[in-house]
């Protein structure tokens, strides 16, 4: 961008370096605008590489807005807003449950505009939570390992396959470590609600010494390298964006159902520039019209027709139900059951 000079801070803050108990950010970058009059501070779980095209496109439309983009994990994002009340103008996260908690507990500002009013009802909540992508959790398999083996299309078939080929898949199955990954926890809890097969699958994966990952990216890398044969509950949008430069992986959307995560934006109540945040929300909500941009970011926009075309897609419902698995006791119980199933020690 000619006009957008940006300075790059690639800095990893360690808690020991900053104030005690402060949240940990992974990356930070400032995008200076040509004639900057205001700054929009965004905290997000999306990697800079993924989000950067959106920032440039946004600044083309709003050339007077500096953007300060901070990447953090969903739990750190929660800590920054919920506990430390840091003055971020926009919080973008894939952890729908934590975002819902922000809105429910009064940490979000209400915003509405022409753009948000045309959104489908299931893509927003309380006019505080605005979903702007629909990203399914998929099964990613290594092509090499399934040359002779039929590719499972449902969870039951997957369980069947893993049970019958325990030697082949031992140590070669991957999924999220739900104890550390907010998104993994969201997918797992939704699975537990959606199907009885989830606990059987977890048991079976436990017996196969399943590898646990923090992030979708690493799972995809390991499947591509052949280190593992399949990864369960991988973020489909990440996998799709890796297809063109990663050989040997196949994305399998299971037929019984697909949990669809909506990446959401929230204006925190402590925001200094809620108007700028509103502009960004309008921009994100209008992503569907900008096909080039959604292609370059790999973020599939909210699209009712796409959902109807793929009947297995089940968008995770906004609402107080998402608070249930954030309950202290419920989380303890769930994690204990999950650890018992997955580790099998």
């Amino acid at each position, binding site marked *: 961008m000619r006009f957008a000079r940006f300075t790059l801070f690639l800095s990893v803050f360690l808690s020991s370096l900053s104030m005690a108990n402060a949240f940990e950010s992974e990356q930070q970058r400032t995008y200076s605008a040509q004639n900057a009059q205001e700054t929009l501070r965004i905290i997000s779980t999306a990697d800079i590489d993924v989000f950067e095209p959106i920032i440039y496109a946004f600044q083309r439309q709003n050339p007077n807005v500096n953007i300060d983009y901070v990447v953090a994990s969903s739990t750190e994002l929660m800590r920054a807003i919920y506990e430390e009340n840091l003055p971020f103008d926009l919080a973008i996260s894939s952890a729908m449950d934590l975002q819902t908690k922000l809105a*429910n*507990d*009064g940490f979000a500002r209400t915003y509405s505009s022409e753009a948000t009013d045309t959104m489908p009802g299931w893509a927003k909540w309380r006019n505080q939570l605005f979903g702007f992508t629909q990203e399914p959790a998929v099964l990613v398999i290594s092509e090499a390992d399934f040359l002779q083996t039929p590719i499972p299309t449902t969870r039951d078939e997957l369980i069947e396959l893993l049970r019958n080929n325990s030697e082949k898949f031992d140590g070669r199955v991957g999924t999220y470590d739900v104890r550390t990954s907010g998104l993994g926890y969201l997918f797992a809890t939704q699975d537990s*609600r959606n199907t009885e097969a989830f606990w059987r699958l977890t048991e079976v994966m436990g017996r196969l010494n399943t590898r646990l990952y923090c992030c979708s990216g690493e799972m995809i890398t390991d499947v591509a390298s052949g280190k593992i044969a399949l990864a369960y509950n991988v973020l489909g949008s990440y996998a799709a964006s890796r297809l063109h430069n990663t050989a040997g992986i196949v994305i399998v959307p299971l037929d019984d159902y697909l949990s669809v995560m909506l990446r959401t934006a929230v204006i925190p109540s402590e925001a200094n520039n809620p108007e700028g945040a509103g502009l960004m929300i309008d921009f994100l909500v209008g992503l569907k019209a900008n096909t080039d941009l959604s292609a370059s970011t790999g973020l599939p926009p909210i699209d009712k027709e796409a959902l109807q075309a793929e009947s297995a897609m089940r968008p995770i419902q906004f609402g*107080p139900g998402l608070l249930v698995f954030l309950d202290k*006791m419920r989380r303890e119980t769930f994690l204990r059951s999950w650890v018992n199933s997955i580790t099998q020690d």
Partner: protein
Amino acid sequence: MSRKDQKWSIRRRLGIQLSVIAALLSIAFYLTVRTVAEQAAADTQDSILAASATSIADALYSERGAIRLELPYSALSMLGTISEDQVFYRVVAKDITLTGYDDLSIPDTSQNQRDVVFETTIYRGVQVRAVAMSRAVSTGNQAQEVTVVVAQTRLGLAATSSRISSTATAVAVGFFLVVTALSLLAAQSAVAPLNRLTQSVTRRGPKDLRPVVTETPRELVPLVDALNSFMGRLRFSLTRSEEFIAEAAHRIRTPLATVRTQAEVLYRQMKQPDNKKSVREIIRAVDESSRSAGQLLDHAMVSLRADQLETREIDLTYLMRDASDRLAPTSDLKDIHLKLDLPSHGCKIMGDLILLQSAVRNILDNSIKYSPEDSSILIRLADDEEYHLMFIDEGRGFESSNPQNLVKRFTRGSNVSDVIGSGLGLTIADEVARAHNGRLEITANKDGPGTCVSLVLPYS
């Protein structure tokens, strides 16, 4: 009765009263709908909160002496089905928060014996509706009291209530407008019989004292009866006075005839010119008195008969000719020539012969009286959409006085003080004309000196 009192209107008062009633009913309707609907909405929220608290309480269990809770998904998700309100919950055992929002206040359950207590309170700066439910959970050998609190903000309720309010307002306003419009119509129709009665009374001629027979509602029957009885008395009294006049006139005329005969006999026997002149004056005065008495008689008869015409078919040419014949002796005395100009065809109308005869006779008599000697009177019947019975003399005319005033009773022209007369002649003709839906027209003669008196009668 003052002018201010006359402006008082039953219709307006009725309309205003009904409108006020409609307004009160509309307000009552609005308040009732709002109260009931808001109560229903609040009850719905309460029952969902109670269901949520129950499902949480049901999910309590104890594990190795500790109370545990597996928060059911539906417990919170059900609260999100009716609105997008914020939801808070807290589970407390022995003042220790097991899980949930530990700063959420607990509605006091000790005061109330019921197991479920509702409370509206403020949490995190927002009004919330909270429900508290106590449940004894057995932990090994002893039971422990666990309190579940579920709270929800009331934005959805407020939205529902404002929606209900605006609907109720719209319906109440519509109701008010419709009822007011109907009230005005009702007021209109309530006074309609009164208007009909008024019209039927005002439409009557001044002489029409027949009882009112218009169909009247029961409420107006006493008024109509009173009116009819009043008119009856009035008619009776009028009739009696007319009869009295007729009787008096009759009683005067008869002796006058005797006096005249005797005076004439006396006149013929008299030789002295002075005395003769005096007697002649007496005869003339007697004639005039007799004529006036005759007119009074005619007038009384016209007044009596005008209300109840005895109609039959009358040929107007015959009527005119007859009048001319009857008054020929009188006109001959003054050398007045009566010229008849009648159409060859018959001109028939339905009318009261006696009244019409009386009218025509009086007009002609009048014309003769005010005509100079050795002149002529043209008696013409014109058929021009109406029948014009015209009597055109060559007399002195009416000069400046308004001819139409002459039809008033006992009114005479300003230039006739030298002629003896009662002023009743044209009044009689006018009343007869009116009784036959016609009129009397008095104009100056177009073709010379004198007056044209026309009795105008419509076709029957």
